[in-house]
């Protein structure tokens, strides 16, 4: 126990003095190690979305940043680079496992070359590895996390874009609004949709609302219940909701889920929905026309 503590203390103390040596070694062997890395990447079938030249130039940059991070112990530059790199490669379809695989490959290559270089002096090798391993792990984690964060940011942005785009409220004629719903419906969006629907009823004084879900691919129980509640809430506000464009798949799902659809007025397509809406309004429209004449 005491001996172990002693070792790690010594290792911690030697970190500072050994890192410059390590960095110097990695700088010296830059060309060889870098090429080895590129070979391993190609052999493993990673980064197939990029050309060899691109891989080589990115690899050089990552290698230099990697060594710099080892030298300074600060991962900020590397982090910024990793983010920037992720931004460039994500649109080209590079996956998380590829990025992690590449960083771990570099770690392995460097570790192995250290083994080879210091194999005559096991004591020194141990201390070098003690200094190298935590730093290398930290770098691997930094790069992986940067990539995932960047990816999540892209996904979030796209979700926001979809959310903004996909639920316009269209006033078709007096007291009739149409809400075409496109894309994924999750419970958050369904809730937002309900608010939008009721807001539209309130502000447009709508009497009939047509919800067109032609652009919705699938639906789950939570979302289906949200829809039922949205229709009920619309009715409570004195408006009729008509749902159109239920695909056969969604219809099947709704039946399988046992959603109570009795309250829902459904029509096959948007055209039929608008006709139904006009029928509902037309009866009132005629009455209004009569009022005007008298």
């Amino acid at each position, binding site marked *: 126990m005491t001996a172990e503590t002693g070792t790690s203390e010594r290792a911690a103390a030697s970190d500072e003095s050994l890192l410059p040596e390590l960095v110097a070694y990695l700088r010296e062997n830059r060309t060889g190690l870098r090429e080895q890395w590129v070979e391993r990447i190609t052999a493993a079938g990673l980064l197939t979305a990029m050309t060899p030249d691109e891989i080589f130039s990115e690899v050089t940059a990552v290698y230099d940043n990697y060594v710099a991070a080892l030298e300074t112990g600060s991962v900020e530059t590397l982090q910024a680079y990793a983010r920037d790199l992720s931004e460039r490669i994500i649109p080209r379809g590079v996956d998380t496992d590829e990025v992690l695989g590449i960083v771990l490959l570099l770690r392995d290559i460097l570790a192995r070359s250290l083994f080879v270089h210091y194999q005559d002096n096991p004591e020194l090798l141990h201390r070098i590895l003690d200094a190298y391993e935590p730093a290398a792990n930290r770098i691997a984690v930094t790069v992986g996390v940067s990539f995932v964060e960047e990816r999540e940011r892209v996904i979030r942005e796209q979700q926001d874009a979809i959310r903004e785009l996909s639920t316009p409220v269209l006033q078709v004629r007096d007291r009739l609004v149409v809400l075409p719903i496109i894309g994924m419906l999750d419970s958050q969006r369904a809730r937002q949709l309900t*608010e939008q629907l009721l807001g539209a*009823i*309130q502000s447009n004084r709508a009497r009939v609302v047509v919800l067109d879900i032609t652009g919705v691919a699938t639906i789950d129980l939570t979302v289906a219940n949200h829809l039922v*509640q*949205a229709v*009920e*809430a619309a009715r409570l*506000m004195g*408006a009729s909701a008509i749902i159109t464009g239920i695909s056969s798949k969604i219809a099947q799902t709704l039946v399988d889920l046992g959603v109570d659809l009795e309250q829902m007025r459904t029509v096959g397509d948007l055209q039929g929905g608008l006709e139904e809406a006009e029928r509902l309004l037309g009866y009132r429209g005629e*009455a209004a026309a009569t009022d005007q004449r008298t």
Partner: protein
Amino acid sequence: MSVAILRQGDALIAAIQSDLTDAQVLALRDDLAERVGRHRLQAVIVDVSALDVIDSFVARSLRSMAITTRLRGAETLVVGIQPDVAIAMAHFDLNLKPLRTAKDLDEALVLLGERVEEDGDAE
């Protein structure tokens, strides 16, 4: 009393001005059912536009109000349900089907006017 009850033609308009206690809600229900029968009215309009909150008890009472007045020969229309209230009410998991609704008083009167016209035509 925080409910103003007005008579307009064959309809009774009950405008709820502020939150009611449970007892007041029940009293209103009985009062309306009683008057409807006594004056042979056609409709009751309950205006809830002043209410920011409708709890499940009030929602259930509105529903039973609709049923009792129907049994006494009149239609009940609830008007002015606010968006947030509508969402909450839809979540109660009550069967609110007997509750007929309209957007506001204006619309309710138009709806009832049409019905009277139709009845007149039929006669």
